[in-house]
């Protein structure tokens, strides 16, 4: 009986699953269309086996489980199609089918073990069911294939057992084939593979990209760190994303690929601080919006402080506030920890910024201080609303060379960033100037012609202001000749280096840590070992590390100073954000804890007395932590203090910086 039933079951499941898949595809294609490039489907296997798997393999056990389960399933399904579906009942194939089912079963056992006491980050509900369904499928497929190799009792062919077996198999097929098309947990395989093929950032998979990391371990990006935000067409009918259908269809596809593994949730600084953001829930809400309905069926952790089940959405309904509260979007620090962790390569930050763009550009509901900063940027070119001509006031005694006086060009254009208005950061900048002078670097500054890079405006969603600033900065830079730009601000570094390209500004931009490391390498500066060894840890700024892949240079600099770095548990590509990026310091969404306090806790755990930083924003956030706490020092300050002066005359430059800080403006 099973012999006749099996092909019907398999083909029926495939047919119903395919119908569901067509429907699912229609859901994705509600998004804004882009030209379809079918040939990209061919890229999928490599992206799956290589790029995706390296992210998964950061957790070895899960990787092995998934290889066994998924590999066993794909093999078993293909063989079952041949053997049971088309009736080519070859004992060898049957043996392979049995083996595949067995492998899958073993993986399934691991899955079930993990699901006995699932960690908080995992979603339950259908995902809990999936673990059982996997058993049903693998066991059912194993048992039903046993007769192929002749070891099975023939009673399996009929009677009550056969009915039971058929029922188990139907359960398995429903979950594994039909569910794939109709939106069960297994849709991740279907959506995920298409998502890999049609990913909006193909550079992330390009091993030969000039930016790609040469090291190929699990911990580094395989391809380029494609982290620049996509420019927005300011003449478009709607600006940003109001409703799910405003996303590009690839983005909707990407949301649908989510496996709710919760890795994003466990690394999100806002979630940990009890702010109402959970990247996993956000992506699931986007899926709810795309398919229509309410979030009541979501079976994972919600947004802290916001009840699950009260929100609903549809493809053409506004997302904020029916589906997602605005606070959720403003809590994001754009640190990209979620994107870095996501095994499905989902782009959370792009989605959040897209929705912020609508809120800011169309609704004018940027959080209050953010709106003030944007107004200031429009009026004065810096977010503090200060006189741009006072950008160099802190350096009155340094006689910084101006690029305006160097028509023949300079080697290094020193980009000061908005830290030039901040008394704390001015100390860093003075140190950096001292280092540049000690290294005999041919540098100059733009002075009052420098404007804010537009980073804050862009992350707050004000693409119009960002583009205006970018165009003006690019126009200014086009007047002058320089080989490269060096900046102590990773945000400027990222925006100038990666995001201005789309507006016609292509520059070689180096972060000061990279540049100082180069000075050390070239033997252009020398330092004395510190008199007493202090224990140091290093905090990776998001926009330097995750955004731009610079993890090595700062550590190289610290090593050159003779310091041993006591690494925090979360460092490098897993560094935890200071809470100051993406305008989050301005939107200031309340939570249980403050992000910088949590980060300082990380620092304290290392026992370090000094935390080395490389970003003005991180400095400000970490110094905002109540004392007593480890000292916070920029790399440039540490190097400048240890510098062996080439001439005694240079001594004068560092002395006044201490007293300046005390002085109220």
């Amino acid at each position: 009986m099973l012999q006749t039933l099996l092909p019907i079951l398999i083909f029926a499941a495939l047919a119903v699953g395919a119908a569901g898949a067509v429907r699912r595809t229609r859901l994705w294609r509600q998004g804004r269309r882009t030209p379809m490039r079918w040939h990209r489907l061919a890229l999928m296997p490599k992206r799956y086996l290589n790029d995706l798997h390296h992210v998964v393999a950061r957790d070895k056990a899960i990787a092995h489980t998934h290889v066994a389960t998924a590999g066993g399933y794909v093999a078993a399904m293909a063989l079952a199609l041949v053997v049971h579906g088309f009736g080519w009942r070859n004992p060898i194939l049957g043996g392979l089918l049995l083996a595949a089912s067995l492998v899958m079963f073993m993986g399934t056992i691991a899955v079930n073990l993990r699901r006995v006491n699932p960690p908080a980050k995992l979603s339950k509900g259908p995902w809990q069911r999936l673990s059982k369904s996997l058993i049903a499928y693998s066991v059912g497929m194993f048992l039903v294939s046993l007769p192929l190799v002749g070891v099975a009792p023939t009673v399996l062919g009929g009677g009550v057992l056969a009915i039971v077996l058929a029922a188990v198999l139907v359960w398995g097929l429903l979950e594994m084939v039909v569910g794939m098309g109709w939106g069960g947990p297994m849709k991740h395989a279907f959506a995920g593979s298409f998502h890999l093929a049609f990913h909006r950032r193909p550079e992330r998979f390009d091993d030969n990209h000039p930016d790609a990391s040469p090291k190929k371990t699990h911990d580094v990006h395989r391809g380029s760190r494609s982290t620049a935000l996509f420019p927005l067409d300011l003449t478009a009918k709607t600006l940003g994303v109001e409703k799910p259908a405003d996303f590009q269809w690839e983005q909707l596809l990407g949301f649908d690929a989510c496996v709710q593994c919760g890795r994003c949730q466990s690394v999100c600084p806002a979630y940990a601080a009890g702010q109402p953001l959970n990247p996993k829930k956000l992506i699931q809400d986007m899926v709810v919006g795309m398919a229509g309905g309410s979030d009541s069926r979501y079976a994972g952790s919600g947004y802290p402080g916001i009840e699950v089940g009260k929100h609903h959405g549809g493809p053409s309904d506004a997302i904020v506030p029916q589906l997602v509260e605005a606070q959720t979007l403003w809590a994001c620090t754009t640190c990209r920890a979620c994107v870095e962790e996501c095994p499905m390569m989902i782009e959370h930050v792009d989605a959040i910024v897209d929705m912020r763009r609508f809120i800011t550009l169309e609704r004018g509901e940027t959080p209050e201080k953010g709106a003030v900063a944007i107004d200031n940027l429009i009026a004065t070119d810096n977010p503090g609303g200060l006189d741009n001509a006072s950008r160099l006031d802190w350096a009155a005694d340094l006689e910084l060379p101006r690029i305006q006086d160097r028509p023949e060009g300079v080697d290094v254009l020193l980009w000061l960033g908005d830290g030039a208005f901040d008394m704390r950061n001015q100390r860093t900048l003075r140190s950096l100037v001292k280092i540049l002078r000690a290294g005999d670097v041919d540098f100059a500054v733009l002075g009052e012609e420098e404007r804010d890079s537009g980073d804050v405006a862009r992350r707050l969603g004000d693409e119009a202001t960002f583009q205006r600033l970018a165009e003006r900065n690019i126009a200014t830079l086009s007047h002058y000749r320089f080989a490269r730009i060096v900046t102590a601000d990773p945000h400027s570094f990222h925006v100038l280096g990666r995001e201005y390209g789309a507006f016609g500004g292509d520059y070689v931009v180096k972060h000061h840590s990279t540049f100082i490391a180069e000075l050390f390498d070239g033997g252009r500066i020398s330092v004395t070992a510190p008199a007493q060894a202090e224990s140091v840890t290093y905090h990776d700024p998001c926009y330097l590390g995750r955004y731009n892949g610079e993890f090595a240079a700062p550590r190289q600099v610290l090593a050159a100073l003779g310091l041993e770095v006591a690494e925090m548990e979360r460092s490098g590509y897993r560094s935890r954000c200071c809470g100051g990026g993406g305008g989050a310091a301005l939107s200031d969404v309340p939570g249980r804890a403050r992000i910088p306090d949590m980060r300082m806790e990380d620092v304290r755990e290392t026992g370090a007395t000094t935390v080395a930083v490389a970003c003005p924003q991180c400095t400000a956030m970490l110094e905002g932590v109540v004392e007593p706490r480890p000292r916070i020092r920029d790399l440039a300050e540490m190097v400048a203090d240890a510098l062996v002066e080439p001439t005694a005359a240079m001594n004068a430059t560092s002395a006044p910086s201490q007293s300046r800080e005390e002085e109220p403006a």
Partner: protein
Amino acid sequence: MSVRRLDPHAERARRNRLHPRHHEFARPAWRWTSADGVTRINPHALGAIGPNGIKRIDRSGAAVEASPAGGASTSAEPARRQIVIDQPVGHVVVVPELPEGRLNDHDRDLFGLARQLADGHDLAVTAVTFLSGVSGFEDAGADRVVDLSAMVTEGYDPEPRLAALVDVEAALSPRHWIFADSLPDGGDLGRRLAARLLPQSASQGANASVGDARPATRVWQLSEGKTLSRAGDRQDILRDVARVLLALPECAEPVSETRHEARVIELATMGGELSSAANEAPASGVIDRGRVAVDPQEIPLAQAPFILSAGRGISDWEGYHHAARVLGASEGASRVAVDDGYMPRSRQVGATGTFVTASCYVAVGISGAVQHLQGIAKCQRVIAINNDPSCDMVKRADLALIADGDAVLAAVCERLGQPRDQTGSDGSWTDEESRHAAA
């Protein structure tokens, strides 16, 4: 006599850029960008001459111009000369603000300005007041006083006041009207009068006097028969003295060496026909419905007159809120108190929060970070209550009490008869508020 003397030669040379000695007198910019692109600051062009004749450049932000109340008063004031003008050929009318029924500094400046216009032209400075029983006009510099209190009511009734002023205009035809350019008081009334007078002057024909008919607003200096008034967009207007002047504080030195008779005159005796605009006034367009009690917590922090600010030194937050209610103070907070979630972000005082202008600022348990001190730079009086006598807030404070903040606030409530456990969260701010208004 420490009268500031102007050297007319120097002034002329300074104004005339073609003058051969112009450079000697021209005031140089205090900051400029030199040829090699470096910002230069000339300390000699900065600052003000202190009372001891030494130039002082004060960048501390800690200095408060107001002298401590009651202290350092001028001890032996020289006797003033009595000036009597019996038969004035005309009038310069000053309409003082008289907040709380007294002449304030701004009013005295207005009289100083009026004296500059009147002296030497045999004109009388005439004060027009809507309050009776105001003293001090003699020393302020008024030759005549017109009391219009009978024609108006208390509160805000600009239309009867305007009608009364039109009567004065008819009776005295003053050469100049001087108002304080403050809204919604003198600035409002002055502009109403100017708008009323303008069509008349304009209808007299487009002659040279038309320019004078337009009121000069925000006047801040009078020199050589011209007034300087501040315009928008960082510009000044130099023009002939207008008929109606709305002047800023410190527009002129107050009268200090003379005393005037301040003779009360009745409009009816002046002979001019009273238009009695007040009698035929149409139904008033603006009706004053009275003061509104304002909860100190609802006053925007930047304008609050009295702030009780809390920092890390506070642990009894209920007690603190209660003390703020008892004292009728607006609540403020340091950044840390806000970060710790005890106070809303909108209450944060400092460079990263709100810059406050309170006349009295009480900082309880705030050590005084640089940003916080920047935020309270404009507060007239600062009181610090702190356990740590060495902290910056104590250095900044006019009065520093080295004690535990929680305990002091509790004791304050006790002393004011409203200890915390007896009074609940009643709306006691309202009567506190009225006391404020009175104070």
